[in-house]
């Protein structure tokens, strides 16, 4: 990895953007609640504080519990470095769709077993919920990426995302439906409303927060950080999908592209905040219905990919 100016931009984005996104979501939610809300970089402050605290372990947890956050953080960092951002190619090249999906699955596996290892009843059943939800949402997520891969005739992420507009042969409908499918499954993966309410404090309804209920200090900081990176990763991919579909309708000058990706990411943050302010958390039994929408979108996307493949 060579430190070029492009890579520098990449690293700065990677450091600041996740916290900015979380901050923006919280700030907009606060606006809808007629209040000031936490500072935009509150999650960064939390992180600094958590690294300054001691770690406390329950007596019956093993190395799995401690390694879970580390694995998920390093995995997430690796993914963020190997996914292309619209004008930039990744510093770590050669990331395949399936590698991407499997690293995500690995992260999930470790976070699930580490929260089972924690030994608290809440973290265990939250882990089981997480497993159920991601099991349901994964097809949508994979299928959406595969549809993009089919259209691009490649499974290399760098050949799908981050391509200059003129090289991009993926049709509008595939981009759009894949973007929607990724967004809907992203809501599930990121445990946001209406699947899971990140601001609730009810042990029996939480999913993500209950999973990390036993983590403390630096361990918790790593969990929070890798969550922020995951948010960035998903929003980045979704934003690229939407920017590409936009570029099919109106001609965007190449210089504006990176900017528009950032803008779309913030807009996605706004949308998430809106949903979190006004929608109702689904009853547990209705979650599959919601995920069905994500699956439908990715089905449509792959249909479009198949249909258009012959035509173009």
């Amino acid at each position, binding site marked *: 990895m060579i430190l070029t100016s492009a890579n520098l931009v990449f690293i700065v984005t990677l450091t600041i953007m996740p916290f900015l996104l979380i901050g923006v979501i919280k700030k907009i*939610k606060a606006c*809808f*609640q*007629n*209040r000031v809300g936490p500072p935009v970089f509150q999650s960064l402050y939390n992180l600094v504080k958590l690294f300054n605290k001691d770690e406390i372990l329950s007596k019956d947890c093993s190395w799995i519990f401690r390694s879970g956050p580390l694995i998920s953080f390093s995995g997430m960092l690796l993914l963020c470095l190997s996914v292309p951002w619209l004008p930039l190619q990744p510093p770590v090249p050669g990331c395949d769709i399936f590698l991407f999906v499997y690293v995500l699955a690995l992260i999930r596996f470790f976070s699930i077993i580490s929260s089972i290892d924690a030994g608290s*009843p*809440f973290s265990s*059943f939250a882990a089981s919920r997480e497993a159920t939800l991601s099991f349901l949402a994964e097809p949508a997520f994979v299928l959406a990426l595969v549809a993009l891969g089919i259209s691009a005739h490649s499974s290399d992420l760098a050949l799908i995302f981050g391509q200059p507009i003129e090289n991009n042969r993926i049709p509008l409908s595939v981009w759009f439906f894949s973007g929607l499918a990724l967004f809907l499954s992203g809501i599930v993966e990121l445990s946001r*409303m*209406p699947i899971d*309410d990140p*601001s*609730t*404090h*009810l*042990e*029996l*309804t*939480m999913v993500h927060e209950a999973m990390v209920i036993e983590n403390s200090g630096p361990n918790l900081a790593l969990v929070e950080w890798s969550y922020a990176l995951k948010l960035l990763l998903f929003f980045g991919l979704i934003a690229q999908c939407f920017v590409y579909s936009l570029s099919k309708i109106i001609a965007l000058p190449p210089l504006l592209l990176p900017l528009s990706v950032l803008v779309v990411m913030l807009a996605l943050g706004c949308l998430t905040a809106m949903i*979190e*302010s*006004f*929608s*109702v*958390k*689904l*009853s*547990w*039994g209705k979650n599959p219905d919601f995920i069905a929408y994500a699956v439908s979108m990715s089905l449509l996307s792959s249909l479009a990919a198949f249909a258009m493949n012959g035509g173009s």
Partner: protein
Amino acid sequence: MISIIEPKDEMELLPALKQWLQNDEHRLGLITSLDGKQLVTLLLDLASRQAKCWITEFAGDSYRSFTSSVPQAHWFERALFDMYGLLPKGHPRLKPALLNEAYSGIFAPLRSLAEHDEGKSYERDLSYMDVGGEGVYEVPVGPVHAGIIEPGHFRLSCMGERILNLEIRLGFLHRGVEKRLTEVPLTKTRFIAEAVASDTAAANAIASAQAIESLAGLVVPEKAVCLRALALEIERLSMHVCDLGGMAADLGCGAISAAFSRLRGSVFRLGELLSGSRFLRAYILPGGVARDADRYLAEFARTLKPLRKELNVVIDSFISDAMVLERLDGVGVLSPAFAKEFGLVGVAGRASAVSYDVRKVFQNKILPEPRIRFESAGDALSRTKIRVFEIGTSLDLIEQLLASLPSGPIAVAAPELLVPDSIAVGIVEAFRGELIHMISTDNKGRIKRYAVKDPSLNNWTGLAIAVRNNFLADFPVCNKSFGLSYSGHDL
């Protein structure tokens, strides 16, 4: 009101109680004891607006249990066991209600210490119900909860995501209020009565004042009666708004819940204008109220008007949201038959077709009568609807009371001595339902026994039954829709 005292033989007590409860106009108020040598059964006759006490003397430490025939008696029997060490013979499952793990061995706080040492031993059964079967697991929650909630321990036996059984253990807030109420001088009683549950401070203070006033033969000035009713309705408004906001927060509607808590700030301001305290504390005293709010009434009306308008908008968008309706519909159903059997009161009662409202029956005739509505679905949605309806009623009543506030004194001098050897009750419709304070005096006119029956006492069983067969993740919604008090129950 002073209650009629009738002696009742132990053998005829149970049939008489069953007979009494046959009639829809009759209610069981509470069952307790004065000093551990008798049972006091307080009965309410809604038709003739009377309270009646059956006093059953019995020898020894045990009596025949009612629970199997009169299910609503079981909390009272459990409390009697904790506080007096009285053993109900034939109780199906006697577990502690007020004194839990922290109290072991022989300890009955309302009995004099001398009686403890007679070598009697009663073991507290602290086990939980064992729900068997493959795949059934237990989720213990509490006593310390993740949010800002009072402590209580819930043990949920689940099958997958379904709740099979809920066992509630309370008593973590047992502060010894009933004992303390008999220890302090009469002038300080009201502060401890308020501390029973401060979200119900006004209702508790009114009930306490009513009981003391009837024992002292005081007639409260009309203006004080109206101001008390005003305080009560403000409290109801405040807590219903709070509960709706909590419900919205549990459902995840951040904006609506924040709007409710913003508006609750205005309701608090109403309370402050009236009494100086956000929780209407130190305002109601035996004989009247503590201060005259005439100076602030204009400001009061100015706050009330926009509050009503904004509240309507927020409530409408909450209760007409299709997703909210869908989410609450059919969650936590409590059938009317159960509600009647367990003597549910208040919002939870009215959502399950128990139309009883103390304000209709026992309140002073000069006060405007509230509109009552009841539903029969008994689910979280109907409880929410009842709450919404009662917010409207409270606002109406506040406006009516303001418009027709009589003039005159706000208090009469507080009593020094009470009528000896009698029992008086104060009954108030607190925002959770029927709240009873019962005072019994000794032969010198001092308070011998002060019993408090919070509305939650009747309703906790309702919650335990209503959550059965619901999703585990819906438990907070059920719990919030009942909106019960822990401190009022634990005393």
